[in-house]
């Protein structure tokens, strides 16, 4: 099997990861991430659900408002998985928000904690650039750290089936 076929076959990992992220933020509220400590998670204003890989069906896009969230949960009960979501992260007391999409896990529309205004002074600019790069690093570390946690459970022969069962029970809850 060549790499592009393999990538096509494993595309479900992104969808399952984002669904797990929603599960995690509703059950534990966050997770301990390598190098960052506790990362608090909140659901943002956008949630897109679509059919699981290999299944037919339409997409459901909802905003984070109470009524719409019920629609998202209904879609989850019907077997759809998360294709994209906006998630808030609190790292070391600072707030980040980003959109993640299942297909490529590309970070989009990332809102970072505020840094000082850009400076004309080259030395000042270097400091600001590096500060901004450090914040971007934090975000990517958090996203990758969470993905790693998911994989550790998902691929474990004992924890994997337990996780699937727990997520099934969570998804079945009415308006949880």
């Amino acid at each position: 099997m060549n790499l592009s076929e393999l990538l096509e076959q494993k595309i479900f990992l992104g969808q399952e990861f984002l669904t797990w992220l929603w599960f995690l933020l509703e059950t534990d509220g966050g997770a301990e991430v390598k190098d960052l400590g506790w990362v608090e998670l909140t659901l943002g204003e956008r949630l897109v659900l679509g059919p699981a890989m290999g299944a037919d069906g339409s997409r459901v896009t909802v905003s984070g408002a109470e009524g719409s969230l019920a629609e998202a949960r209904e879609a989850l009960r019907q077997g759809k998985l998360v294709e994209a979501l906006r998630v808030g992260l609190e790292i070391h007391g600072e707030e980040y928000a980003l959109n993640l999409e299942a297909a490529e896990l590309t970070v989009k529309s990332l809102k970072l904690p505020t840094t000082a205004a850009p400076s004309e002074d080259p030395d000042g600019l270097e400091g600001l650039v590096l500060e901004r790069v450090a914040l971007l690093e934090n975000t990517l570390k958090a996203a990758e750290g969470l993905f790693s946690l998911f994989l550790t459970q998902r691929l474990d022969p004992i924890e994997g089936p337990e996780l699937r069962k727990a997520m099934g029970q969570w998804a079945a809850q009415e308006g949880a």
Partner: protein
Amino acid sequence: MGLLKGRATITRYTVSGEPPAGFWDFIDRRVKAHAFKDIESSTEELSVGWCAINDYFDTEFAFMAYAMEPYVLLGLRVDQRRVPATLLKKYHRLEMDKAKSYLDEGRNLGRVRREELKDKARLGLLARIPPETKLYEMVWDTARGELWLGAATRKVMDLFEEHFVASFGLELTPRLPFLVARDLVAGSQLAPALEEARPWGPLAWEQGA
């Protein structure tokens, strides 16, 4: 949306391949050789090249200001002229009317001539339309071989990947979920499980799964 200002969008790549000895000299030579070239006073439709990350007019790279070890921070400047289809249609028609006025009555322009006149109209418009400028930011962590591009559309990614490879002769691989997963579990007992993993499918709780 970029990397250093406002809301950020990040496409991640792994950079692989062996850069030659004297890495920073190599980078400086290649950046300058593939710097952005202005097309303002020409009829070129597209120009793609490196510029300073915070100023697309800066293509001199004084004091290697783009190098903040281990990072290389550059802008990819893309200038493009676009001829609106409606304008092309109008000026093509004007060219054809002019050419027809030299023909005997009842004669029409042939297909080849009509195409030539379309090209002429297009070139005339390209000379009058200024290019639109866009800047896409790049942060390359040369120590870890990881690179971020401040864009996520396929078209920009293609332009970027092509220019990066032409500039540095190094390979770029997008960090797609499965490839990231493979890196994360490499060498652990989970590695074979990843290769064999199949989709959960719908969580199927209603069927009691």
